[in-house]
Structure formats: structure tokens, C-alpha cells
């Protein structure tokens, strides 16, 4: 039985412009179901013309709230993605890992930032 599935992002979104939270949710729903079934998943970004971190947060980042890092790492791969977009994806993934690991991180950084002020 073929345990591998290829998800084409443009087909899932219905658009080559993959930029909104709603666009990302469409992809997330498919990946989430496939991961729940234990599938090996190849996510193809072929023909995507526009991409945002907001889209990737919704499509992939939020998976880290449902599945652990090791499981996602063993099941997910991407293909047909330009290097600049892969940099964004990597940042989204790293951000997602810390988001779900440490939800109070923002408080400590806020306190540090309030003491830092530069200007004219």
C-alpha cells in the first residue's frame, strides 16, 4: 500500500498566490489529515507565484501544535520551492517550535524591549 502522498499547494489553495490565513488553512487541513493517517508527505510548491509567512504559519506552522517535532520531521518534506521561500519556511518552522514550547516567551522579551529606546 502506498504510504506516500504528494500535496500540490496550488491545487489545494486553488490559486498560485498563496498569501492569506485562509489559503494556508486549506493546505493545513490536507496535511493534518494525511499526518493523522501516518502518511509520508511531499509538499510541492510548484507554480506558487507568491508566498507569505502568514500562509506558511497556517499551512505548516500550526502542525507543531498537533504533532511532535520528531514525527513531523520523519513524515514531511518539501519540493519545488525557491531558496528565498525555503528560508521563510525554515524561520516559520523554528518559530512554531518555540511558540508551542514556550508560550510565555513574549512576556520576557517585552520586558527587555521596554528598556531599549533610541531616537533622534
Amino acid at each position: 500500500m502506498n504510504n506516500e502522498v504528494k500535496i500540490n499547494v496550488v491545487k489545494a489553495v486553488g490559486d498560485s498566490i498563496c498569501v492569506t490565513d485562509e489559503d494556508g488553512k486549506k493546505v493545513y487541513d490536507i496535511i493534518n489529515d494525511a499526518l493523522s493517517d501516518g502518511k509520508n508527505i511531499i509538499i510541492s510548491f510548484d507554480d506558487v507565484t507568491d508566498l507569505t509567512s502568514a500562509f506558511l504559519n497556517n499551512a505548516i506552522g500550526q502542525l507543531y501544535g498537533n504533532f511532535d517535532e520528531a514525527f513531523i520531521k520523519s513524515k514531511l518534506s518539501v519540493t519545488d520551492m525557491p531558496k528565498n521561500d525555503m528560508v521563510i519556511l525554515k524561520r516559520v518552522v523554528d518559530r512554531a517550535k518555540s511558540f508551542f514550547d514556550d508560550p510565555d516567551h513574549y512576556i520576557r522579551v517585552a520586558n527587555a524591549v521596554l528598556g531599549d529606546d533610541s531616537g533622534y
Partner: protein
Amino acid sequence: MHISIGEESLKSDYSGFKRIINLHQQIKTINSEDKLIVDMPLWFDANMCAPFGAILSILSNKNVDITLDCQDQVMEILQKNQFLPKFGFDKLSIPDDYDSTIEYFQFDVNDDNNFKKYVETHFGNNVHGFPKMSQELLRIFRGSLYEVFGNSVFHSETNHIFACGQYFYLQNRLDFSIVDLGIGFHGNINEKMNLHLSPKEAIVWAMEENQTTKKGGTVPGGLGLKLIKEFIEKNNGKMQIVTYNGYWEFSKGRTILNTFSSNFPGTIVNIEINTADSSYYFLESETDYENIF
């Protein structure tokens, strides 16, 4: 009421935003029985139509009669970029033979498709008159516009978003402004994070790595503005944020913070890019592409 914005050229800088804010302060109490005449400057960076139009829209909603007193060259810009016709002024649009203007538009926050169409129509190497850019630069720039628009939709708690742009061919520069009349960075952050930040402090908070108001939710966030800043630095461009009386500017590796004596009633994000940049990578390139997850 007869008001002057000042004769001096109105540019996308601290002084230009200050003059827009001063205008708002003077006209915000006008009621529907009044008429307003605005003496326009001798030159107007057309992307500043976005904050200018946002301010005037508040009066349009009150059915205030507005007249803009312009020199011919400013009148021409405001016709070419559709600002005057869109506002219901009795002026037709005229073709932009130099292809230097990017249409002024007011978007409904619920209409993502309209903004997608707008970006597709105006920003592409196949668009007549669009300055030739590398495909990589164009992709990253368009992504930045979508990030900023998405931020306004998600965070501003308002109904409309205003946008306008301008090419400056001789300087290889493109400026694009996205504006909302929402609760501002501080309104959003203080409400969701139970903090007490000033508008300026709120911008600084938002620009810190990994900051987001999406705490406790199921979807991470907080990268969009940081990625844009990173891109702007590598591109040798400029990024400006005005939120209420807070001002933040990033250019040539330097961050400038300031405040205004009054508030802009929302948020302005202006992105200026160097269109002659032929770099291939715009973001951090020390990425382990084999271990994304």
C-alpha cells in the same frame, strides 16, 4: 474651513507624515454642514495619497464638501493615480504616459481577492511601464505587500485599507504605502498581551524577533514585519511605520524612532525598495535546506 498643508514638497518622510497628521488634527472636528478647502503643496509623493485619502475618507463619510486647491502638476498626479475620481471629485482620470503612478485604492478588509488582483495588475515584469526587476526581488517585494496587508486585515479591527504607490525612475526607487484607520500597534498589543506600551514602544515590540499577539492560539505568528525589515536592509531600501503618534524608520542599517505631537488615527506602513537591486538572495542564506523540519 480653509487649510493649507504647506507649499513645500510633501514627501514620504517624518516631516511629510507630520503634515498629514497636522491636517487631520485641524479637520477632524468638521461637521457635515462645513465645507473644506485644502491648499495642496507644490509637489506630492503620490504614495502619500494613501494616508491623505484615509484622512479625507473620514470627512467623506460625514458628507463634508471637500475641494483640493492644486497646482497643475499635482492635479495631474492625482488624476493619473485615480485619487481624484475615486474620491468623487469632479475630475476624470487621465492616462499615465510615464507609468510612474500606482493606483490609489480603498480595500474592504474582507476582500483579500481584490488585493490579490490589485498586486497582480500593478506589480509584475509584464506590466506596462513597471520598472524591470529581478524575479527574486519582485517576488520578495510582492510578498512584503501581502504581509503588510494581511497584518492590517488581522490586527487593525477596522473596515478599510488604503493603498497607493509611486515609481521614482531616476532614483530607481518604488514607494508603496498601506494605511488603516484602526486601533494601532499599541491598541492591538496592549489589548491582547495585557501590556501598557506607547505607540512607539509598540512598534519596537512588534519588530522584535518572535513577537506576536497570537499567544495562546493554535497558529504561530510574528514573522512578517521582521522578514520585510531583513529584505529592506539587504535591498538598501527603507521601511517606515507610523502608528498613532509613534514613528519608526529603518534605512541603511539604522533604526530611527520618534513621536509626533498628535496622532494619526491608525497605522501607515511605507515600503521603499531599490528597484535596481539584482541580488538573488534577499534573506538569510545560512539555512540548512536539508533540515527544514
